[in-house]
């Protein structure tokens, strides 16, 4: 157990190292210059630009820049934003809350609706509802998220005027829970659509697979109540593949949040990321990249741990 844990940790560090090098190179070598925002100001001279470049630490060779950045990363100094000179961690944590609220609501919604759909379909395989839901999940997965965003805005905000079309709360108004929830509803539903479909497909397959097992037939033959079989025998065993999915969904949700936040002008980390790419704000972009990479690798470790909890066979101490 300790050995697998150590090797897993090593693997995680290697992965993060590759991610950081690739990300750093991609960002810095891509055309565009963070100084573009200064170069446009009137009266800017080449000497002044040189000073700014030096202060940003962009005048040293790229490998050295990388090492300086990594050193800072390890001691908790993630650099400062090129845009407003705020520490990167402050900027990230300032936007993280909004994204967690959005992605959290969306994933709760997706898990609950999707898993229910999947279970329903698996228990009534071949029924009309089952077919309909299978088709529906392919449809949901085949349409870009932002299209749903646009259609929902056009219907619920522009046409019907029921819900706001963007932002996290009404401009200028005092904070109220109702107002916040009204703003949260549309983006959360849009972000949840894709993962709902994935959850539904996945749950359906997992449950159907368990239903075909011999021990379910045995349980039926023993005369256990359908309810007991369903919860004790089927769901408990179908839980395993579903835990894997929960771990895998983490990075996907972040990617989806990027687009959803853009459509609904939600002030979260996804929009911050797109903005920082556009401004060539390297420290912030790299910070978010590393943050989500750590989250993704961490997600897979938590998945494994949960796996051990759910499956006694995998628990420590057994060969």
């Amino acid at each position, binding site marked *: 157990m300790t050995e697998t844990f150590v090797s897993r940790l090593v*693997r995680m560090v*290697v*992965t*993060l190292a*590759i*991610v950081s090098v*690739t*990300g750093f190179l*991609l*960002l810095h*070598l*891509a*055309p*565009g210059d963070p100084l573009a925002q200064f170069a446009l100001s009137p009266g800017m001279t080449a000497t002044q630009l040189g000073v700014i470049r030096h202060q940003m630490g962009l005048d040293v060779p790229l490998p050295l820049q990388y090492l300086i950045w990594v050193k800072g990363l390890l001691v908790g100094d993630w650099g400062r934003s090129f845009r407003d000179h705020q520490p990167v961690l402050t900027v990230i944590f300032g936007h993280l809350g909004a994204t967690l609220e959005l992605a959290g609501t969306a994933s709760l919604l997706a898990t609950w609706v999707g898993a229910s759909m999947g279970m329903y379909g698996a228990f009534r395989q071949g029924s009309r509802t089952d077919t309909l839901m*299978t*088709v529906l999940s*392919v*449809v949901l*997965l*085949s*349409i*870009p998220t*932002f*299209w749903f965003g*646009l*259609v929902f*805005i*056009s*219907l619920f905000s*522009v*046409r019907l005027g029921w819900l706001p079309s963007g932002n996290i709360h009404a401009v200028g108004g005092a904070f109220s829970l109702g107002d916040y929830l009204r703003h949260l509803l549309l983006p959360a539903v849009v972000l949840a659509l894709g993962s709902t479909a994935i959850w539904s497909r996945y749950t359906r*397959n997992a449950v*159907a*697979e368990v239903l*075909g097992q011999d021990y379910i037939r045995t349980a039926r033959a023993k005369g256990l109540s359908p309810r007991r079989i369903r919860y004790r025998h089927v769901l408990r065993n179908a839980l395993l593949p579903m835990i894997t999915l929960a771990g895998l969904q983490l*990075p996907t949700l*972040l*990617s989806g949040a*990027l*687009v959803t936040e*853009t*459509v609904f002008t939600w002030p979260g980390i996804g929009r911050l*990321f*797109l903005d920082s*790419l556009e401004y060539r704000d390297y420290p912030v972009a790299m910070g978010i*990249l590393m943050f*989500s*990479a750590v989250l*993704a*690798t961490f997600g897979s470790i938590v998945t494994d741990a949960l796996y051990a909890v759910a499956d006694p066979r995998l628990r420590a101490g057994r060969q």
Partner: protein
Amino acid sequence: MHTFRRLMKIRTASAGLVMVAVLAVACTLLPPLLPYDPLEIDLHHRFLPPLSGGHVLGTDEIGRDTLVRLLAGARTSLLIGLSAMVLSTVTGCLTGGLTGFHGGWTRRVLMRIVDSVLCFPTIFLLLTLASFGQPGAPTIVGIVSLVAWMEVSRVVDGQVRALRGREFVIAVEAMGASGVHMLLRELLPNITGAIIVVSTLNVARAILMEAYVSYLGNGIQPPQPSLGAMLNDAQEYLRPDPWLAILPGLVIAIAVIGLNFVGDGLRLAVDPRQGRRA
């Protein structure tokens, strides 16, 4: 032929095939028959709703015919999807075949790279990679393939490794066949089914990715019509003309749903055993 007949028996798969075929035929044959050009501006007839003024699906914010633009955009999407599929399938088969066949270090290195790339949010990769080249169709094909080959590689790697220990492969090896012969003549033909399935689903994914990149402004550049870019433009005109936002999405949906249905159907048709389990 058996596979095709099995495929046609799956209702969603045949429906998907029809959807893709209709779309492909429409965007090749229809444009020359229509009296409009996708770039032709007509400021006297802006924001026409569908079925008015001789424009079947109306016009956009500068009076260009929506139907013609949709068809041109769909053709670009399909072509990008197909080219990206070819490129990613070839790369994926080569790398996956190599690692599955040799295993060991080559495999470990490749899997580490694949894992790391999967750590990046897809949109980040697409957008940063897009900024390296001239925005346009060839660049999109390149970056989409760069993101999509891994899926193929993983599948081929797994399949080759599974077949590597089977009797017929060992028999050929014992007869003194070269590695290249074994890979190309014995292993790959046996996993064509799996490769076709991933490739079909990859065409769908590539079309979606093109839509995302163009929507975020780094793909096909205006005035060239692209479904994603049309959605981006439509965003500003949701109030006067919601059709501009609804229609391009529907075209993307037809293409991607159709391809996904075919892909899912193929999965069952190629390997009936898997179908019964799933």
